[in-house]
């Protein structure tokens, strides 16, 4: 259970570990409920600001939770499109290092890899990570299909029923995301170097969190990976 997407279809196993799209969907199931809950939160929050249709369209074509919250927060405060786009994109800059780490594991030509890269959000990238810089694209895409459907469904529920159900954050489901990443971190830290990178990443994020714009602490923390260059 600690490995999201254990191999369950032996006929798929070519050499070493090989996963199916279904493994990816199954691995993402524990996150379906929290993703739906966060999406309901988004629908509840965004509907009065940008309208129901725009809220749903945003979830359908953007599918990036923290960026959507950031952009809507700016618009709600009376900010313009430029400021809202900047706030959202700053949140999404963390998909740059995620995409760079994923790139070597993706097959096919550049356009196909670019399409597959669209499946990256925090939990799908984290679930596809097999350690040592390797990623499984079927786990990535399977998890994406599962969580994307939950994200869109939850947004629709929040837009339509926001007045009735209130904010699901009170259920504590939002705490599942950091708990899950902590669990993956426990599995990922297998050598002194990865432990140093994790501690440095956490320290950089914590140091920047009080004053840096949202999104900056996480992207800056990625620079901790550069310790690989001088410590062998």
């Amino acid at each position, binding site marked *: 259970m600690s490995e999201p997407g254990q191999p369950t279809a032996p006929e798929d196993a070519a050499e070493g570990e090989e996963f199916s799209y279904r493994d990816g969907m199954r691995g993402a199931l524990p996150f379906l409920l929290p993703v739906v809950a966060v999406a309901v939160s988004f629908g509840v929050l965004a509907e009065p600001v940008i309208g129901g249709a725009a809220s749903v369209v945003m979830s359908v074509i953007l599918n990036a939770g923290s960026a959507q919250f950031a952009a809507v927060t700016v618009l709600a405060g009376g900010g*313009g499109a430029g400021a809202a786009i900047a706030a959202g994109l700053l949140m999404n800059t963390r998909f740059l290092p995620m995409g760079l780490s994923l790139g070597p594991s993706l097959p096919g030509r550049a356009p196909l890899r670019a399409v597959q890269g669209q499946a990256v959000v925090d939990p799908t990238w984290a679930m596809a990570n097999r350690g040592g810089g390797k990623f499984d694209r079927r786990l990535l895409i399977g998890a994406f299909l599962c969580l994307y459907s939950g994200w869109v469904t939850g947004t629709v529920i929040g837009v339509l029923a926001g007045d009735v159900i209130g904010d699901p954050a009170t259920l*504590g489901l939002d705490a599942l995301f950091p708990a899950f990443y902590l669990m993956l971190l426990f599995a990922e830290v297998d050598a002194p170097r990865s432990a140093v990178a994790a501690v440095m990443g956490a320290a950089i994020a914590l140091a920047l969190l009080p004053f840096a714009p949202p999104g900056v602490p996480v992207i800056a923390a990625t620079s901790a990976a550069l310790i690989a260059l001088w410590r062998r």
Partner: protein
Amino acid sequence: MSVTWITIAGLTAGTVAIKAFGPVTAGGRDLPPRALAVIALVAPALLAALVVVLTLGADRSGVTVDARGVGLLAAAACLTARLPLLVVMGAAAVATAVARALL
């Protein structure tokens, strides 16, 4: 187009480009060992940062210690005790909800 739709269009175009950049530039060829060594450390650094930001980050910017911290401590205790994933997640959610109701 209204401000809302311009925002959605701009945000979507930028996000698609950001997500495509890594797979296009770092894929389809063998990377030098030093680059692979850096890539292998991106995950622990990024995961640790996500834990910090999602637990302590405030709505816009700043640091808040609230019920999420209690949930994370519960998760960390379960992970140290090597309990299964569902127990870890359940403990995190329940601890957060209880703390949120009490605080």
